[in-house]
């Protein structure tokens, strides 16, 4: 009974779909989270009769063949990199990127990770760090005596010191862009790592061609659209149920067969 197995692939696919949707909903309030979508593709086909095979001795050819598909599988789980909403926090180290790009974070392992989550603060040493305490590249030191800190749209960190009229530039935050953003691999904690599929990071100051600009005092919320997710959840649940009905129907066919005397 092939239809039993086919319907089972359908149920598995919808289960993945529900898992992805629930992860989106769970991360509805995660700063910088990008929603994901499961994408499906049909499995291989068995040819019962090949298209174009001869249908009679007179040389006539079958205009269409008989194929049975064997179900569905998950092709990929995509990240949709649409801009999330900007939320004002009034925290002077919070940064949001408007447009393309990722902040670069130095991990304790020596690797560089990338993030859209700009919830930054100062470490005890006065360096700009992420919420986990990882240094934001290239480690910018803000003097303890700084009265005010301004981070402008192009990533320059300007501090006002007592007794100085002009603000002092203490560093430049750079953002990284990738040839294929979708190729970044998520490592949790809002962090991503570069892979051969994403290509090398191209770091530059915000506002350069291809790079977005920064906004101080704002964070980027997730781009999860609750209404859309709930709607997809209902659709996925119904599709799951319908596939399970196919299993019931196939089972009933089998039981009719076994009852046959």
């Amino acid at each position, binding site marked *: 009974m*092939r239809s039993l197995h086919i319907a089972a692939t359908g149920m598995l*696919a*919808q289960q993945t779909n529900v898992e992805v949707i629930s992860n989106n909903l769970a991360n509805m309030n995660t700063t910088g989270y990008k929603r994901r979508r499961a994408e499906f593709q049909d499995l291989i086909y068995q040819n019962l009769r090949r298209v174009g095979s001869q249908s009679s001795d007179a040389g006539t050819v079958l205009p269409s063949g008989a194929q049975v598909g064997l179900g569905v599988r998950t092709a990929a789980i995509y990240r949709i990199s649409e801009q999330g909403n900007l939320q004002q926090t009034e925290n002077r180290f919070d940064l949001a990127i408007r447009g393309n790009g990722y902040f670069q974070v130095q991990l304790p392992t020596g690797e560089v990770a990338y993030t859209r989550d700009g919830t930054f603060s100062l470490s005890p040493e006065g360096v700009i760090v992420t919420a986990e305490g990882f240094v934001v590249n290239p480690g910018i030191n803000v003097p303890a005596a700084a009265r005010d800190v301004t981070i402008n749209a192009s990533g320059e960190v300007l501090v006002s010191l007592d007794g100085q009229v002009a603000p002092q530039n203490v560093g430049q935050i750079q953002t990284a862009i990738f*040839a294929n953003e979708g190729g970044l691999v998520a490592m949790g904690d809002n962090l991503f790592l570069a892979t051969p*599929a994403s290509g090398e990071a191209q770091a530059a100051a915000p506002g350069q061609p291809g790079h977005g600009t920064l906004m101080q005092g704002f964070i980027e919320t997730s781009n999860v659209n609750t209404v859309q997710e709930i709607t997809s959840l209902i659709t996925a649940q119904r599709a799951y149920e319908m596939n399970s009905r*196919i299993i019931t129907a196939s089972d009933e066919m089998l039981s009719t067969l076994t009852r046959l005397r």
Partner: protein
Amino acid sequence: MDSPSYIILSRLTSQLRASQVTAHNLANADTPGFRAARPIFAEHLARQGRVEGPREGREVAYAWDRATWRDSQPGAITRTGNPLDVAIQGDGFFTVETPRGERFTRAGRFAMGANGQLVDHHGHAVLNANGQPIAIAPNDTQIEISGDGTIRSENGILGRIRLVRFDNEQALQSEGDRLFAAAGQEPQEVPQPRMVQGAVEGSNVVSVLEMTRMMAELREFQMATQFLERESERQQSAIDRLLRRRA
């Protein structure tokens, strides 16, 4: 010879396959660019040469599971927000370069490959009007795809996505992974292609219809098995009667 049982058996086998096709359609209710398949059953005439009598009496018709065809109704187009997603409105297929040769698909979820080419989700290059991959440079950031498939960035025109059509769309071979093989046909350029950027064409499966079809198939299957059972009862009673008369 026991024709009725064999005839109904041919019907049962066909019905089983019909349910497989329906199950496959429903399993792919969320597969972008998927086209629902439908089985075709035909009468198969077996001549019984030596029987004299009216024409109808000479022929036995078996159900013959003849072919599957693809429903070519377009699927619903949904917005995705990815600038490289392209949905086809109306006729046509995208061409992608696979290791097995050119393949055709309606699933327009494209991305930028690591080498800067426009690729499908398998990494197969999407081909332009000249049959070449479409390259996007890292400094092309504002990608715009117009209705006829022309890809533009702030640095100018990058190419035009090729849309092809076939004389006999039904003869295309489904390969899975949402790809079709040309099966000996020459692809022809669609004269007036229409595409939508930032959207993907969904599956054209209508779940409710498939569900109803499955129920109908189940009942027909049960009817056929019932017929088979009655037929066996009829034969049994004939045998019983004949044996009784002899005794």
